[in-house]
Every structure is written in structure tokens, then in C-alpha cells.
């Protein structure tokens, strides 16, 4: 089983972050939330692996509360 990779893995971290914010440009909070939902579903399908997805959900839930 592969573990959830929480080590740095983005090829261009600053570039990705900029693109992420830009994707939400001019959207209302409701539209942004909908975009985020579609994004999560697209990425989740790409990952596929159930254990990794559940680990990511757990991690996200437990961080920053």
C-alpha cells in the first residue's frame, strides 16, 4: 500500500499556487465553492486509491481545526 505523500511533490509550487488562486478569479463565493468541489472530484478520481483518499480526508479534517 502506498501512503499519502505529504512530502513536497509539486514541480512548481509557487506556479501551482498562483494558478489555483487564478482559477477562482471573478467568482462569487458560491461559484468558488462549486469549483473546489469539482476540483476535488477530478483529483480524487485521478488518485483513485481508496486508502490514500481516506488518509487525505482524515488529514484535512484534523489539520487547522
Amino acid at each position, binding site marked *: 500500500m502506498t501512503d499519502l505523500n505529504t512530502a513536497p511533490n509539486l514541480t512548481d509550487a509557487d506556479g501551482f499556487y498562483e494558478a489555483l488562486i487564478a482559477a477562482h478569479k471573478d467568482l462569487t463565493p458560491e461559484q468558488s*465553492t*462549486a469549483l473546489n*468541489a*469539482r476540483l*476535488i*472530484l*477530478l483529483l480524487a*478520481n485521478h488518485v483513485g486509491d481508496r486508502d490514500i483518499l481516506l488518509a487525505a480526508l482524515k488529514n484535512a479534517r484534523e489539520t487547522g481545526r
Partner: protein
Amino acid sequence: MADIFEQALYPYRRSADQDAAAPVRHPVIVVGAGPVGLAAALDLTLKDVPVLLLDDNDRVSTGSRAICFAKRTLEIMDRLGCGQPLVDKGVTWNKGKVFFDERKVYEFDLLAEAGHRRPAFINLQQYYFEAVLLERLRELEAEGRPVEIRGRNKVTGVTRDDSGVQLTVETPDGPYSLDADWLIACDGAKSPIRSFMGLDFHGRVFEDNFLIADVKMDADFPTERWFWFDPPFNRGQSALLHKQPDGVWRIDLQLGWDIDREMEMREENVIPRLKAMLGEEAEFSLEWISIYTFQCRRMERFAHGRVLFAGDSAHQVSPFGARGANSGIQDADNLAWKLKLVLDGAAPESLMESYNRERVQAADENILNSTRSTDFITPKSDISRIFRDAVLNLAEDHPFARPLVNSGRLSLPTAYVGSDLSGEDALPGGPERTRPGAPAVDAPVGGGWLLERLGTDFILLGLNTSLPDMPGGDTLPVTVLTIEIEDDRLGALRERYLGRNEQAVYLIRPDQHIAARWPAHDRKAISAALAAATGGMS
């Protein structure tokens, strides 16, 4: 002629039991002549178990109610001798469409595989389903089989002890008492018997209302299941359109929780809703209107001594997925052969505990599936609705999102995985779908079908291998059946039962679930599996 649901098909007649000095004792009393009670009574009657069927009514149900009957139900009805009239009368369908807002986002076809006698589903009004089973019961009665149905016999009290069950029954001529060795309670979601016995019924209530309308019209909609999320004609809610026989269409409209039920039921309010959906110019008449709310819950146990609960009395699901009546029929299917063996002394009474375990497992599977569907169809939080809409938006262009669209996961039979009735799975690389616990999968054999060859006893099936007769002296009837692979017209038998093996031996229960399988005949192993499958006695 009046519609079938307006006729007293089993009118009240005074029974000699009502004049008896002491309560007359019956081996099996079934309470409730709905689909599940009728199926249980038929199954036991065919096994020559004397059955008394009591119903508080004298006719079949009004309204379409459980309209979708699944392939497994039809296969069980074939075993009970009335599958064909159901299929002849029913509307066969395999395809469905899902709409979101004004767009079609997804289409599906349930019949991906050839080589099955019965279709994935038929639509048939519950009153026709009940009428066909009732007619079959009458046929068996006319043949002299030990079955009796008593209309307008309302059970008003139940007590039980170790030796059996005592009932009080109200009739137009007043009350009388009956005793039963076994009582099968198929008396519906509000089960009076469950209340008399003070038994629990826990689960989740869904705070929503659905308007159901049976609409008679000449329309050229295709024979498909159409489901809408958030359509223009029912904003923020869902809708379902389904075809039934006789030009009757079933429409389900979600209304939300905070409504005035009495107002919504009025024709003057229903008609505009339907016109918004079907078009202003649509001409139709209303056959039946109902508003329902639903719950997903089950009894903690389905077997309480010699009282067995089956169907809605034991478990309720949301309607999405057609898992109510279809799972109730499987309860009856699971129960009848076990009760027969117990009554014959061929299995210990504890065998009935396996009914409890296997059907509780099935109920949990059905409740899980229907709860998930309900949460998708009627999101319970803002974020749940946001993800639901995201899935629907993505589904239009992206195949990956389509399996996430959940407008009901349609009823499939439960495989009793891990049941202590299941014996060994000794067939190397045997197909997953026919592993022990699973229902036997149909396949074409010669000019007929595998399932119709199985009959109602335990079956020892030799595929491409001939088997010796079972040794005599057993209390258990086991039918030995050999099928040669040249009878396998489509290669379906090989694919569904052999895998890469050249031959196999299957032990199949009377409810057509697989008990065990081996690569070759092994008398000791077969005896052990048979003992396990009958609760450890034979």
C-alpha cells in the same frame, strides 16, 4: 368490469375454526397477503407444508406501490410457478436517463449481459403482482394442496411461548382464537404483530415528502426510467417517470418537508404540478395519488422464537433502488425451505437463526444502499448539495463522474458471504459471482435455462462430470443433476461456473444459493457441506 383492486378476490367466509370449542392449531400461519406473505405461502404450499394465510382485507392493494420487480424476484417466481404471467403482463425495461436542470447528463443500460432468462427489471403495478400470486395460490388450492386464505381476518393479538404462538383474530362475525406452531408476520411497515410483541424498530427517518401519482395517458415517452435532479418543473427537488402496463405512468415528485399534505393531495393542486412536468397540452387522468415519507430502519432481530418477521414488517428502505418488495421476496425465499426442513425434523429448530442472520445481513446491505441514494438525491447540508451538483455537472462530459451519480442503486440479491451455512469454496479460481453464499446465476442450458433445472430440493450439480446417486437413508432430499458442457450454448456456464476448470461440482440450496463447490466429487466433503447448510444435523 371493476378494476382488479376493487374486487373482493378472497371475500370473508366463516371458517369451522370459528366454531371450534378450543383454538384450532395450524403448523404455519402467515399474516398479510401482500407480495411477501403471498410468496411465503406459495413457497410453503409447494413444499406441502399446510399454510393458513390471514389478511385484514379481502382484495389486492390499491395503487401501483412497489412497481419495479427485479430479475431475482422473477427467478424466484419462476420457481414458484408464476414468473411467466408476471413477465407477460409487465413492462420490461433496461434503460434509464438522468437529467439535471434542463440537460440530460447520463444514460445507463442495466442489461449488459446476454444469457439470462429474465430481464433486469419489469414494471408492474403491485396489484397485478399480487393478483398473479393469488391466482397461483388458488390453482394450488384447486389441486388439493393444503393452503387456505381467509379474508377480513384481522389479527388483534399475539402471544407466544416455547411451544408456539396464540392469535386472536377479528372477523365480521366477531373474534376467535387460533394456535400456530409458527407464525410468519408479513403485515407491513406498521406491523401490528411487531407492536403486540413490543418489539423495537430503529433507524433513520428522512424528513421529506414525495407525491406519487399514477397517471393514465397516451404518451410516446420511451420505456425507460427517467430521473430528474432539480428540474425546471420541480425546482430544488427531484422527479421520476416510469412506465407501467395499461398506459399508466408512475410519477414521483419530491415535495420537501414543510408542506401541507392534505392540500398537496388535492387534485386541483396535483394537476398543475403534473402539467408543468408533462406539458400543458398533455391529456391524462389520475388513477391514484399518495404522499409518502420514508424511513430506513430494521428490527434488531427478524426471528423471535417461532415468530418470523419478513418484508416491510422487519425492515424498511427508501424507495430509491426498488429494494423493498424485492428484498421481502428474498426473505420469503430464504425462510420457506428452512422452515420445511425444521417441520419435517430434518434440521434443528436453530436453523431458523440462519434466516435471522442472513436476512439481517441483506437488510443492512439494502439500507446502506438506499440511504446513500437518498443522501445523494436529497442532500442534507449545503456542502452535500454542492458536491452533488458538482458530480452532476461533471457527469455530462466526464465518464469518471457517472458512477458517482446515485438516483437509486437498483436491487440485486445479497450474497450470504460468511454465512455459517456456506461450506467450502474448493474450486481453484472459481468465478467470484458463484462463490458460496451467492445466488446461482442463470445461464442457457440446452433448449432451456439452468435455474429452471434446479427445482426445489438441494441440488448436487455436476458440470462436465457425472455424479453417483446420493446414498440412501438420508432424511434430506438431494437431487443429483449432471450437465455436459455441450449443452452450454453460449459458453455462459463455463464463464459463470467453471472459470479455467474443465469440470466442477456445486452444492446448491433449495433457494438456489450456492452452498459449496469443488473441482470433483468428494462424498465426505459433500456430506459435511450438506450438514453445514442444514444447521449441522443431517
